[in-house]
């Protein structure tokens, strides 16, 4: 590999840290006192959306340990007294693992399939967080607000996902080898 200029190094560095930075931004945005109806309900699930979308595009730039740290940060910032710390971390790590394991069904397929996959995985995420919260605080947590969050974030997904997906299109090699997983070019797309 030939020696790169400073700009190229900076560019590479920027590319490598972008997904992490976007995730951190959405973790902090969770706390933004936005009063838009419905949208503010869904803010706590947006980091999960970012994790899903970037795990599709560039999982190597969003490694598991980083997700663990971000999840714990989210729980620390968001949680009230008694809420378990690390639930979101567990959820993020599992979302990433599920996406990476099922890339052949999720990468290079029509958008509707990706949306469906998101709906399925975030359902798992919501159920996991809800049940662990109920278990750790040992109270019957009302599931309705969590359901509302879920519905709103699934509806928001088509608005936000194409924006986040741009990060992949700008990749010089388009799809790096580890991201491709077991999928072959043209295998699942029509």
């Amino acid at each position, binding site marked *: 590999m030939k020696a790169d200029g400073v700009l190229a190094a900076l560019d590479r560095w920027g590319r490598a840290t972008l997904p992490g930075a976007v995730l951190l931004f959405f973790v902090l945005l969770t706390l933004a006192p936005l009063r838009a109806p419905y949208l503010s309900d869904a803010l706590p699930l947006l980091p999960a959306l970012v994790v899903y979308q970037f795990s599709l595009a560039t999982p190597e730039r969003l490694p598991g340990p980083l997700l663990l740290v971000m999840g714990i940060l989210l729980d620390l910032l968001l949680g009230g*007294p008694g809420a378990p710390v690390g639930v979101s971390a567990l959820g993020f790590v599992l979302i990433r693992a599920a996406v990476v394991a099922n890339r052949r069904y999720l990468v290079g397929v029509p958008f509707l399939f990706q949306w469906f996959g998101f709906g399925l995985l975030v359902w798992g995420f919501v159920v996991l967080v809800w049940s662990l919260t109920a278990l750790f605080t040992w109270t019957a947590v009302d599931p309705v607000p969590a359901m509302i969050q879920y519905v709103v974030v699934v509806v928001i997904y088509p608005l936000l996902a194409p924006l986040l997906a741009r990060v992949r299109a700008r990749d010089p090699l388009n799809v790096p080898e580890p991201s491709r997983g077991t999928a072959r070019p043209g295998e699942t797309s029509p």
Partner: protein
Amino acid sequence: MAIRDDFEVAAAQVRAAVQRFALGLLVIAAFGAMLVGKADTVLVEHARVLALDLASPVLEAIARPVAAANRAIADLKEFASLREENARLREENARLLAWQTAAQRLENENDGLRGLANFREGPEASFITARIVGDSVSAYVRGALLNVGRKAGVAPGQAVVTGEGLAGRIAEVGDNSARVLFVTDVNSRLPVLIERTRERAILAGDNSSQLRLTLLQSVAGVQRGDRIITSGHGGSFPVGIPIGEVVETGEGRVRVRPFADFSRLEFVRVVDYGVSGLVSGAGSSAPSTPSGVAGQRVR
């Protein structure tokens, strides 16, 4: 050639095993964090406060644009009902002016009677005005983050009020940040009085927009429209801060609508009553002398 293929296959298998192992490790780490959080609450408390203090400058930076966006949304909504709103306000103003006269007369009378009876009032409260820089509202918590902390004299257990009534109490305090737990949070329990009957009760939140009134001696005495105020029992809250009004009664179940409008909170006041009551959380250090850095202290 075959040996090389075998080697590559074996290497791939090892790599896959390591990757699977990595996932297991991460899952164990996440569960470890949960268990540590359950076992060592003080450590988690410190971590929360640290995270709050680190995040609050960032949140403060984005709070203003977010507030502007909120105002724009609210403006749009209000334009639609400007005429009705004006009529309603004029009517309310007339009613309030009558109340003001009554209040002045009663205050004078009260002062006179207190002088006669040699009544000693409780400690005087002072206020710390704070901006809400973050919401901690999710399906599981109802709260907010403030841009004032220990340096401004904020301590756990203090009451947080808006112009309309009680909003909540301080749960965690950092150097320059604090977390409010709203009265609607599922962990919130308040000793209250029913203003009309002076009956004591406990007001509990359940993460919904309404509150639940429990432990009443007689549920029958409560009527719709009764105002609920803080009772001051427990020592950390002043007596008589309005909280909400009863909107539903029936079958031992009384629902209360809080006066504070949590959907448009921007500034709140932290009431420093000067007494650290029973509520002040374990492990929290005593508030240092206020230096008036972040918060504005008014009498």
